[in-house]
């Protein structure tokens, strides 16, 4: 049975698109058939992060409006043949996302793929509502800061009341992905503590992705961070998150500030 996953947050710039690409690629590496769908109509981004921007012909809106068939709009990833992307339109209005149109596309994607990952736009309006509507699972992307946590809380409320599952009296399975976690700032007390975020949002934690230059490097070359350099800290964190998503019980380690040899020596002397 195909699973529809929405990657959502309320707030912009927290790492939804980065996470959709990284998780999509890591899932595809397990052999599953995966499609990542960009719902950010007008601010399409996912194609860039996936390095597919020069191959976009048709997009989600074209399919919804009947101007193109689904298979014409799907772009196959160059590195993983079981990974596809359905790009958003950069020119159309988000009102073109009709309820019926989205429902039809999602139903068709469910037949073709094992995982359908929907990259949600920011906000709480029509775009995010459409992206979450058909979800079985939600990955709520949150940064450890007050405004992001509050927006995520709001999104969780919508997941529990406005989605198709909620309207059927069922639940959307919800996971928290804490991203852009900066161990140095955490050590200084400049960020919310992991346990405080968990207490407020009270949904299970899928993983903690550290703030890292590797993410920028990967997106600049148009490769999901999990493929670009699988050994880096953020790539490993995303791989672990995917294993948890698949049901593995893996302990979560809060990223620590990596200190130089001299720092550690000094630290020990003082202690």
């Amino acid at each position, binding site marked *: 049975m195909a699973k529809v996953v929405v990657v959502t947050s309320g707030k912009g710039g927290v790492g939804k698109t980065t996470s959709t690409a990284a998780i999509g690629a890591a899932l595809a590496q397990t052999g599953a058939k995966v499609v990542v769908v960009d719902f950010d109509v007008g601010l399409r981004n996912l194609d860039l992060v996936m390095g597919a921007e020069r191959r976009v012909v048709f997009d989600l809106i074209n399919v919804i409006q009947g101007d193109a068939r689904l298979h014409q709009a799907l772009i196959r990833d160059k590195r993983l043949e079981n990974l596809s992307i359905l790009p958003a339109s950069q020119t159309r209005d988000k009102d073109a996302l009709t309820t019926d149109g989205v429902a039809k596309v999602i139903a068709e994607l469910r037949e073709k793929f094992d995982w359908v990952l929907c990259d949600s736009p920011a906000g*709480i309006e029509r775009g995010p509502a459409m992206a979450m509507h058909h979800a079985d699972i939600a990955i709520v992307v949150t940064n450890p800061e007050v405004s992001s946590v*509050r*927006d995520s*809380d*709001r999104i*969780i*409320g*919508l997941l*529990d*009341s406005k989605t198709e599952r909620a309207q059927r*009296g069922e639940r959307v399975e919800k996971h928290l992905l804490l991203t852009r976690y900066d161990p140095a700032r955490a050590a200084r007390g400049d960020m919310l503590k992991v346990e405080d975020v968990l*207490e*407020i949002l*009270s949904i299970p934690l899928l993983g903690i992705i550290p703030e890292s230059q590797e993410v920028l490097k990967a997106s600049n070359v148009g490769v999901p961070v999990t493929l670009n350099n699988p050994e880096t800290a953020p790539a490993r964190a995303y791989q672990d998150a995917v294993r948890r998503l698949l049901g593995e019980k893996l302990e979560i380690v809060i990223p620590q500030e990596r200190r130089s040899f001299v720092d550690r020596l000094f630290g020990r002397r003082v202690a």
Partner: protein
Amino acid sequence: MAFVVLPEAPLGPWLAVLRGQIDKAPGFFNARPVIVDFAHLSPGTEGVATLLTDIEALGITVIDVENIGEIPCAAPFRRHLLGGRPTGAVEIKPTVRPTPEAAGAAADAPAAGSLPVEPGATPGLIVEDHVRSGQSVLFPKGDVTVLGSVSSGAEILAGGSIHIYGALRGRALAGAQGFARARIFCRKLEAELVSIDGFYMTAEDMPAEMRGAAVQISLEGGRITIAHQR
């Protein structure tokens, strides 16, 4: 939470529009205190002297005025702000009903009037889950019990008392239709605002030693009082 209304001249038509809105959604203002902002009015505006009485005649409870300046308008409201500071404008939030049970309850809320029955006999509303930011639970009939937490940016409005088994981080308004014996209970006080019978207290005025504590909140001689749970 409290609405801020901004009357505009001419006041006759403005009041007519307000009356029309109340007819369309009876009970909407009923449970909510209103703050009247005089910013768009001047001492010479026709009908300004009786504005507050006219608004209250529509069945709305006025709890405070803002920007009244030199405008000669008697304030008929009996309630007052703690510490005498005016509140800021308050956002009007959409009503989201977190549980089917709550949806039913809100739909058959009484259209007008005060708490219909003695508290012991009032129906209660139980919310099984967390109340998330942006959601509000309105239950003018009686007590509300929340098994989870109430998030920052969420609100509970009850005709009776409010019982929260988790943390209260948002707003809780008990006794909202004029029931001074209502109380608010929570396991962890991190509230933005609490109110009983129209009297309210914002986070800033809450005693520091009560933050994070399990508390009960009551109205004692017109003052919001916060005590540790026994």
